[in-house]
C-alpha cells in the first residue's frame, strides 16, 4: 500500500514523469530498441522541463503587461495565446499530469470511435490535441471533476471533438480538395463553418478569389517568432507609453521604461519559442508512436491533418482570409469592451493560420464576396468566444491570457454551461 501511495503521490502527479511514461508506453508498443526507448522517454521528460521554463518566462512577461495595460487603459487587456494557457495550466496550476492523461485518453477515444463507427477520422495534429486536453482538463477541474472522472470526461469530450470537427468540415473540404482522401484536423473548425455560413448567405461561389491578382509578400510572417514579435513589440511599447513613465519606471529599475517594455515584449516571444520547443520535444516522441498505432488499428482511416494541408488548393483565399480576419479581430478588440467584456488583443498567428483557412472555406462557399465579408465576421467571432472565457480563466488563476482555437473554447464552454450546472445537481 505504501508503494502504491508513493507512486500515486510522487510519480503520477509529476507531469513530466507522466508524459515520459506515456512516451515509454508508445515506444514499447512500437517494439523500439532499448536504446531508442530510453532516449525517447528521457527526451519527453526533458521536453516537459523546457516547456516549464518557457511558461515561466511567458508568465513573468504577462504579469508585467497586465499591470501596465490596466494602468494605461483602465481595463483588462488579454493576450490570446493557447501556448500561454497550456504552459500556465501544466505548471503554475499543477494540472500537468491530468492534462497528459487526458491527451492520451482523447487519442484512445478517437481511435475507438474511428474503429467502430462510420466516422473514420483520426486526428493527427498532436499539438491541437494537447491544446484540447489542456482546455478540457482546466475546465473539468473548474467544474469540480477530479481524478479518474476528470480524465475520462476530458477524453470523451475531446475524443468526440477530434472526430466531429473533421466530419463537420468534410463536405466543404471535399469541395476544396476534390476528393475524400484527407480531412482537416485543426481545432478552429467551428470558426471555419461560421465563416462558410456567412459566406453562403452573402456570396457567390462562382466568383472565386483565385481568379484575381493579389498583392504579394508577407515576409514578416516567414518566421513564426518574428511574426509574434511584430505585434508584441508595438503592443508593449504603446501600452507602456500610455501607462506613463511614473508608473513604469519602478518596474524597470535602472533601465529606461520604454527599453524595459521593449525587452519584456521580446521576453514574451522568447517564452513562446522555448515553450514550443518543449512541446515539439514532447510530441516528437509521443505522436509518431500513437499515430502509427492508430493507423494500424484503423487502416481505412481518413487522416485529419493540420490546416496547411488546404493552402495549396486556394492560396489567394488564405491571404484574403488572413487580412479580413485581422480586420475583424481589430473591430472586435474595440467593440467588445463596450459590452462589458475584456479587450482581446489580436493574435497574428491565429489570424494567419485560422484566418487563412477560414478564407479558403469562405471562398469555396461564397467566392470573393463571401471570403471578404465572412472573413471579417470570422475575425469578430474568434475574438468574441475567448472573451466569454476571461472571467473563468481569471477565477482559475490564469494570468492575462485566453485561449485561441475556437473548438477548444467551445469544449470549455460546454463544460462551463452544461457540465458544471449538472455537477451542481449531483
Amino acid at each position, binding site marked *: 500500500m505504501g508503494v502504491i501511495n508513493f507512486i500515486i503521490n510522487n510519480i503520477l502527479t509529476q507531469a513530466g514523469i507522466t508524459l515520459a511514461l506515456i512516451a515509454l508506453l508508445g515506444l514499447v508498443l512500437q517494439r523500439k530498441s532499448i536504446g531508442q526507448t530510453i532516449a525517447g522517454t528521457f527526451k519527453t521528460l526533458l521536453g516537459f522541463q523546457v516547456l516549464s521554463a518557457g511558461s515561466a518566462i511567458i508568465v513573468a512577461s504577462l504579469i508585467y503587461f497586465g499591470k501596465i495595460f490596466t494602468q494605461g487603459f483602465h481595463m483588462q487587456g488579454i493576450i490570446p495565446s493557447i501556448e500561454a494557457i497550456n504552459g500556465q495550466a501544466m505548471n503554475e496550476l499543477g494540472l500537468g499530469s491530468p492534462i497528459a492523461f487526458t491527451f492520451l485518453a482523447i487519442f484512445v477515444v478517437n481511435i475507438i470511435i474511428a474503429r467502430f463507427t462510420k466516422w473514420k477520422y483520426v486526428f493527427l495534429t498532436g499539438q491541437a490535441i494537447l491544446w484540447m486536453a489542456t482546455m478540457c482538463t482546466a475546465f473539468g477541474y473548474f467544474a469540480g471533476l477530479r481524478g479518474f472522472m476528470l480524465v475520462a470526461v476530458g477524453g470523451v469530450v475531446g475524443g468526440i471533438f477530434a472526430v466531429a470537427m473533421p466530419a463537420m468540415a468534410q463536405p466543404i473540404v471535399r469541395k476544396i480538395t476534390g476528393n475524400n*482522401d*484527407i480531412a482537416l484536423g485543426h481545432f478552429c473548425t467551428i470558426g471555419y463553418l461560421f465563416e462558410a455560413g456567412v459566406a453562403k448567405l452573402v456570396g457567390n461561389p462562382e466568383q472565386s478569389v483565385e481568379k484575381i491578382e493579389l498583392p504579394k509578400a508577407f515576409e514578416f510572417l516567414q518566421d513564426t517568432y518574428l511574426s509574434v514579435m511584430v505585434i508584441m513589440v508595438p503592443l508593449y511599447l504603446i501600452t507602456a507609453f500610455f501607462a506613463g513613465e511614473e508608473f513604469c519606471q519602478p518596474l524597470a529599475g535602472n533601465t529606461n521604461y520604454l527599453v524595459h517594455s521593449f525587452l519584456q515584449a521580446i521576453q514574451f516571444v522568447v517564452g513562446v519559442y522555448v515553450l514550443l520547443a518543449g512541446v515539439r520535444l514532447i510530441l516528437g516522441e509521443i505522436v*509518431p508512436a500513437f499515430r502509427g498505432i492508430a*493507423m*494500424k488499428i*484503423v487502416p481505412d482511416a481518413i487522416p485529419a*491533418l493540420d490546416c496547411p494541408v488546404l*493552402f*495549396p488548393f486556394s492560396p489567394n483565399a488564405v491571404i484574403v482570409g488572413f487580412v479580413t480576419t485581422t480586420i475583424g479581430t481589430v473591430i472586435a478588440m474595440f467593440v467588445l469592451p463596450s459590452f462589458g467584456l475584456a479587450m482581446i488583443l489580436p493574435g497574428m498567428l491565429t489570424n494567419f493560420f485560422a484566418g487563412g483557412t477560414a478564407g479558403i472555406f469562405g471562398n469555396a462557399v461564397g467566392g470573393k464576396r463571401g471570403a471578404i465579408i465572412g472573413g471579417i465576421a470570422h475575425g469578430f467571432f474568434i475574438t468574441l468566444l475567448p472573451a466569454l472565457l476571461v472571467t473563468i480563466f481569471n477565477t482559475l488563476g490564469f494570468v492575462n491570457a485566453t485561449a485561441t482555437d475556437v473548438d477548444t473554447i467551445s469544449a470549455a464552454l460546454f463544460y462551463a454551461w452544461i457540465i458544471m450546472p449538472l455537477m451542481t445537481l449531483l
Partner: protein
Amino acid sequence: MFFWNNKKKKQETPAIEKVEVADIEQLKEKIESLESDLIAALGKDRIACLNALGSAYMEIQDTEQAIHYYEMSLEEDTVFGKACTDLMSLYNIKRREAAVAKDDEQLQLYLNKIDNLMQTTKTIMRKV
C-alpha cells in the same frame, strides 16, 4: 445503430480511378516521350515535364514513380501546383497501403513525408 460500421459496405473509393487498358498503352507511350524530353528540358519546360510525368504515372497507378517525379518537381521549383496537391494524395495512398500491410517502417515514412509536405506548404504560403 445507424452509425455503426456497415460491414457489407466496401472500403472508400480509391483516390485514383481505374484507367482503360487502351488508355494505359497511350499513357505509357506518352511517358516514354516525356522521359526522353526530360533529358534536354530546362527551366520551366523541365518542371512542366516532371509534372506531366508525375500525372501520367499517377493515372496508370504507378504511385512510386509518380511520387518520384512530383518530388523532383517540388524540389526544383517549390511552388503551389499539381505536384503539391497530388503528392498529398499519393502519400496518403502509400500510407494506407502500409497500414493495411502493418508495415510500421513504411507507415512512419509516409506519415513523415505528409508532415514535411505540410511544412513545405507553410513555407510556400509565406513566400506568396
